[in-house]
């Protein structure tokens, strides 16, 4: 009995540190933009697949997989921020950026669909036509009043934009690599230890300690460096930070980059731990990590870590001692419970609504 509990505790700790790594991305972005980045779970999946691709090309090396996955995810994270969130904050460049992205998407979709429906040229022309029509409709209905007052009360639009970006990325992954699961190679040698009668693998120890080291580094970056100071300033008051000579766009990009980096590392770790990677897990991991962030108090970095660990342990314990089929219900039950009892989470600061 004791052994089972300790074993489950260890499992929970591993799941929890993965949740914590993803949750850090949510919590930092929320801290600055007050936006739930629904595309974050997909960035995690892209990281896992980029790592897999790297092992296929360069052989089974953990470090190369991590580097390759990180670069891919960071670029994607910056792209998402640039395309889906920045145009909602500032209107100046949105049309140009969106047209460029639209053109790119058209060529890409055309390239993918060339064998199924038309040849490449017809395909490009067809999708260009679709884009042109959409552009004309958008131009006809574009709202001028909105362009004048892009104030802070457009958060529901940002939220929907985030969800839309998540849909686009997850379906793009499905288009590029097909809906099948993939076997993930073991990137860490299988060595077993015996600690006080409990078997622990090197991989398990590695995941926990590696996540812990990353979180400590992040904590130091945010609290002790100049960039971290700027991040906290932007999070505290974006306009005032701008007046102090900080470029909020750069800081926000930096935040997205760090969040995506951690998500990519989490993706590779999950892949190598379970030896399998599925394109559909992004949404669920994303939501669970988000619950972890809310549990710890959204916007707080230690909170995300503690929240992730608590959620992981409770979930694994629930699976082991109650019923595996209620795994998701347990996690969401925790979410609703914490929201009703203490909406700001364990470490969140309480802000009073001003009139």
């Amino acid at each position: 009995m004791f052994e089972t509990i300790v074993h489950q505790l260890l499992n929970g700790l591993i799941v929890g540190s993965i949740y914590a790594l993803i949750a850090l991305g949510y919590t930092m972005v929320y801290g600055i933009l007050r936006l739930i980045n629904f595309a974050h779970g997909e960035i995690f999946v892209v990281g896992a697949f980029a790592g897999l691709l790297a092992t296929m090309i360069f052989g089974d090396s953990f470090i190369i997989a991590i580097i390759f996955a990180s670069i891919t995810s960071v670029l994607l994270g910056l792209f998402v921020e640039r395309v889906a969130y920045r145009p909602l904050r500032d209107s100046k460049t949105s049309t140009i950026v969106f047209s460029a992205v639209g053109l790119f998407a058209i060529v890409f979709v055309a390239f993918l669909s060339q064998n199924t429906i038309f040849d490449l040229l017809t395909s490009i022309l067809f999708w260009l036509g679709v884009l042109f029509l959409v552009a004309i409709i958008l131009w006809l209905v574009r709202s001028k009043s909105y362009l004048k007052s892009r104030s802070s009360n457009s958060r529901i639009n940002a939220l929907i934009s985030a969800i839309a970006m998540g849909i686009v990325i997850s379906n793009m992954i499905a288009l590029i690599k097909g809906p099948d699961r993939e076997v993930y190679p073991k990137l860490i040698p299988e060595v077993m230890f015996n600690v006080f009668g409990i078997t622990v693998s090197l991989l398990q120890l590695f995941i926990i300690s590696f996540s812990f080291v990353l979180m400590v580094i992040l904590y130091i970056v945010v609290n002790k460096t100049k960039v971290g100071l700027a991040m906290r300033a932007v999070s505290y008051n974006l306009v005032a930070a701008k007046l102090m000579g900080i470029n909020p766009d750069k800081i926000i990009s930096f935040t997205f980059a760090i969040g995506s980096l951690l998500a990519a590392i989490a993706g590779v770790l999950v892949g190598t731990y379970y030896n399998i990677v599925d394109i559909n897990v992004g949404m669920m991991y994303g939501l669970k990590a988000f619950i972890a962030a809310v549990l710890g108090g959204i916007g707080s970095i230690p909170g995300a870590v503690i929240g992730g660990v608590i959620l992981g342990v409770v979930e694994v314990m629930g699976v082991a001692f109650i019923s595996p089929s209620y795994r998701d219900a347990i996690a969401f039950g925790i979410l609703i419970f914490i929201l009703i009892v203490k909406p700001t989470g364990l470490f969140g600061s309480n802000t009073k609504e001003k009139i």
Partner: protein
Amino acid sequence: MDFLFNDYVFQVMTITGINIIIVLGLNLITGVTGQLSLGHSAFMSVGAYCSAIIMIKFAVPFYLSITIATIVSGFIGALLGMPILRLRGDYLAIATLGFAEIVRVIFLNLKVTGGALGVSSIPYETTLSTVYIILAFGILFMYRFEKSRFGLALRSIREDEIAAEMMGINIARYKVLAFTIGSAFAGLGGALYAHQITFIAPDDFGFMKSVEFISMLVLGGMGSIIGVIAGVIGLTVIPEVLRFASEYRMVMYGIVLLAMMIFRPQGLFGKIRVNL
């Protein structure tokens, strides 16, 4: 004329009507009262399962069965509304999302709902005319409701909660009221859906379904009944037209939504913008 009047077109039209009923409910919660809900599909599933099961088990008449389903969904909406409606903005959105996931998992594990296999061979009762007669009453109800004192109170909550409270509006009560009626509409739509498709499973009512309803509402414009109708028709018909390119359908859907948010965030017919 076969091109226009065949079973396929009738079915798409029926589904469009059902979706309009459901999104009208969401419009009351999100568009009129300003409370973002990401769990609307849960109430649809409650209505669908409720009507399907009581009709199969107890052989009650169709209209009684959908009425019961509507009342049950409304009741569950009220029950859920009471604790969570004091949350605001993002927190409310994720709480409703969590509730929807819990409902899905419960349906997935109960014996009476058939687990992952769902409920099949539900009696086929929903015809095109039934849906559109109910829809006409639904639109009339919503139109009158928004113009009434209740509607005015709900709109004042959307515009400024604190000011509304100062004016003596019982915010908690009105929010629960909006949630109850909105959920009842979703349940009604769900019941009609179950008797149209004749087969339901928990995965038909996942998070993506809620996102679809929100997208319809946002595309058409929040707080506007014309907008709801336009948004639903747009997002129900476009996927059918793009069926030949079904693999790229969801990508295009996402891009359309994204473009809409960037270039015309208040939707096609919307005049207002909801504060979170």
